[in-house]
């Protein structure tokens, strides 16, 4: 063993690390709201690259860049169902240079998992809605085409039997899970939620016949209309991809109106002038023909129109109020799952 080898190793490590520490150190102050934006804007995504929210952000990014006039950097900070990103953005300076792109389920997650939520402000007040450019998808309950269950009524009837309905969805506390809990509350009977890791695994379990039904976004790529039979959707109107699947509003269960809404938000305290500028640029980007063409081609559920700050906030408030009533049920369902183990 050489005596000095260690010192050399350490010295080399230091030599290589030193210049790296300088990377990223620069002047971050930009105070003038009038000249906003003066530098690039970072949009944090709380989910993995290639996922639904990420794809939506990457889709609008070039157009937002075009209309806001500065570079838009997209950064993924996945984890804790998007709450890591929410905690991070909530703590940033409200100067309009760090924004978050997220879904409506996030503030709900903050309420279901209070231990994951680190901000001082209440979840619904920590972030200011700016604009929503994806609001056409929601949740759907589906079975395999090979299943004996053919209609929504068949499935509800099956839930009343002793065997019950085993329903797969991605993750505990996810929108899929919440939909399943709401089903139990409204229809009664025996619904057993089987958590999977992703929408792909849910489709796989349904196609393989391991579960009776699945709960996923009707727009998910893993749901192929030639193999899957969609029974009902949580949307306002029927989905183009599934013309035969009724909405829960048609089935007279308006509580099950759950959308998947992706929007841009800023930390609380961001000056209204900046919000206005971003809102205007987002609206132009959303209505750019090239963006609309891309969304159509990529089958992105952008919905009929973008929602401005007011409409977006109105939906979120409505959604949160609806869901708040469900939180005790959700937490009870979680506890039951944990106690049963």
């Amino acid at each position, binding site marked *: *063993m*050489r005596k000095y*080898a*260690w010192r*050399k*190793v*350490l010295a*080399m*490590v230091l030599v*290589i*690390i030193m210049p*790296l520490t300088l990377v990223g150190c620069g002047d971050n102050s930009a105070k003038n709201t009038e000249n906003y934006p003066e530098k690039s804007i970072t949009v944090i995504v709380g989910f*993995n*690259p*290639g*996922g639904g929210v990420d*794809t939506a952000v*990457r889709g609008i*990014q*070039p157009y937002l860049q075009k209309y806001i006039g500065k570079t838009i950097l*997209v950064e*993924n*900070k*996945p*984890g*804790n169902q998007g709450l*890591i990103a929410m*905690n991070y953005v909530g703590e940033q300076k409200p100067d309009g240079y760090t924004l978050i792109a997220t879904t409506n389920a996030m503030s709900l997650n903050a309420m279901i*998992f209070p*231990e*994951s939520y*680190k901000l001082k402000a209440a979840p619904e007040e920590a972030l200011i809605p700016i604009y929503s450019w994806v609001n056409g998808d929601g949740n759907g309950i589906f079975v395999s085409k090979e299943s004996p269950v053919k209609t929504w009524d068949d499935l509800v009837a099956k839930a009343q039997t002793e065997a019950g309905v*085993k329903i797969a969805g991605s993750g*505990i*506390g996810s929108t899929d899970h919440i939909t399943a809990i709401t089903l139990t509350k409204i229809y009664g009977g025996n619904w*057993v939620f*089987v*958590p999977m*890791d*992703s929408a*792909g*695994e849910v*489709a*796989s379990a349904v196609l*393989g016949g*391991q*579960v009776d039904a699945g709960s996923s976004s009707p727009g*998910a*790529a*893993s*749901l*192929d209309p030639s*193999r899957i039979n969609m029974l009902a959707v949580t949307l306002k109107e029927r989905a183009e991809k599934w013309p035969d699947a009724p909405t829960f509003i048609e089935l007279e269960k308006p509580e099950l109106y759950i959308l998947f809404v992706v929007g841009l938000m800023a930390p609380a305290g961001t000056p209204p002038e900046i919000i206005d500028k971003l809102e205007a640029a987002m609206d132009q980007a959303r209505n750019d023909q090239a963006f609309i063409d891309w969304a159509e*081609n*990529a*089958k992105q559920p952008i919905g009929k129109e973008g929602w401005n700050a007011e409409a977006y906030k109105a939906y979120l408030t409505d959604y949160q109020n609806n869901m708040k009533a469900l939180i005790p049920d959700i937490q009870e369902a*979680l506890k039951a*799952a*944990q106690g049963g*183990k």
Partner: protein
Amino acid sequence: MESVVWQGLLASLAPTSILAVLIGVFVGIAVGIVPGIGAGVGLSLLLPIIFNVPPLIGLMLLLALWASDGYGASISSILLNVPGGAGAVATCFDGHPMAQQGKAGEAIGISMAASMLAGILGTFVLMLAAPPLAKLAVKIGPAEYTIMAVLGMTLIGGMAGKNRIKGLVSAIIGLMVSFIGYDLTTGFVRYNFGSTYLFDGIEFELVLIGFFAIGELMQAGEEGGTVAEFGKMTGTVLGGFKEALKRPLSIIRSSLVGVVMGVLPGIGITISSMAAYEVEKRFSKTPEKFGTGIVEGIIGPEAANNSCQPAALIPTLTLGIPAGSTSAVFLGALIMYGLTPGMDLFTNKAPLVWAMMWGIIVASIAYVLVGLIFANWFAKLTILPIEYLVPCTLVTCFIGAFVTTNSFYDLVVAFLFGLIGYVMALLKYPPAPAILGVVLGPILEKNYFRALLLSDGSHRVFFSGTLAICLWSLLALILFAPFLFKLFKKRRGIKSSS
């Protein structure tokens, strides 16, 4: 049909496609070599860049990157005993001893040949049998996955080395690490020490960097010297190439292991390459030589992790069900381009699909050609003094850890695992079983509880169905065959002597 195949081939050989493949190959080898980042990170970094590129070019770039990542990862395993990626852990077992004997070039040659041929074989399976295989794959349920995870546990014996107990302890450490964070079935958070950072558990890559890169490298740095002795460099890249080609059975066997495990969502390259190593050892006439630098010991994992990639595309392209995290990113790219997986893709977009599949083969050949140019230079790294090699690798590892999620905590976690890994290395606990434990833990746990949810709590579900019975029989065979074989031999010995 034929014309579509032909059109695809021509499209994959167009100058722009070849350029995309070459860029993909260079990036792929680079992300492969760097421990802690692999094809998944490479793909997510390129995803925003290819947004404005036509689908064929963009997808060829991604596929070439993905295909060559496995080859790049084996280089770090062979030269430094630090796996460049999840699929290259088992490559260390025989690749590094070979490098220590001065035959790094030969080892790289073996890895190249096995990787290329397996990639091509896997792609042929994808071309010929994708739809039926995908249908079969979704039939396998949580109960079967649970038994498969138990089967996976038997791999520990093969990689524990001389001391089985230490191997088991290492595997248990890995399993314990894998249980940190959210319980995937109940949402219950355990072993997080009150920290929200640990809610999502510990990234597999960080454990890999910590145990292998930091732990083992620190020990190597202490010892100093060089990996191989100067002036004792024997064995050439081409020689390794020929050695691998002399063993077609090993290549086919290991490629099949890779294909089977690749198709199954959630199994992945780590387990498939370790399983192929074990299969090669069981089929070998000289199993005791495994771990000392044997050709089959490199062919096994390298062939398996490269045939895994095209196989993982089978459920991704036909059903839109990604087989793992890397295929999930690739699926994201398909969706971004407006390509919906499923039958529609194979009928309406057939030329593009065929061009993509040919693209994997073109990429496999391309990384071998690129690899041939660089391999001899890489091999020379083994005669560089370790006190220069180790710090450069360490810093690269930390950058790798940081790139994955941009989180400072990741660096801390990688460092902490490095300390544990260092102590383990000092006490001669093998790190590979720990990696296996980290990978198998969640597969075992979530499938066990899912199976029980589906059976309303009855354990009978694990013993119903033909596949379950077959898997249990295989387990029994693996566990008891060596004893029975010995017993049989003894009896025959007694008979013939009497």
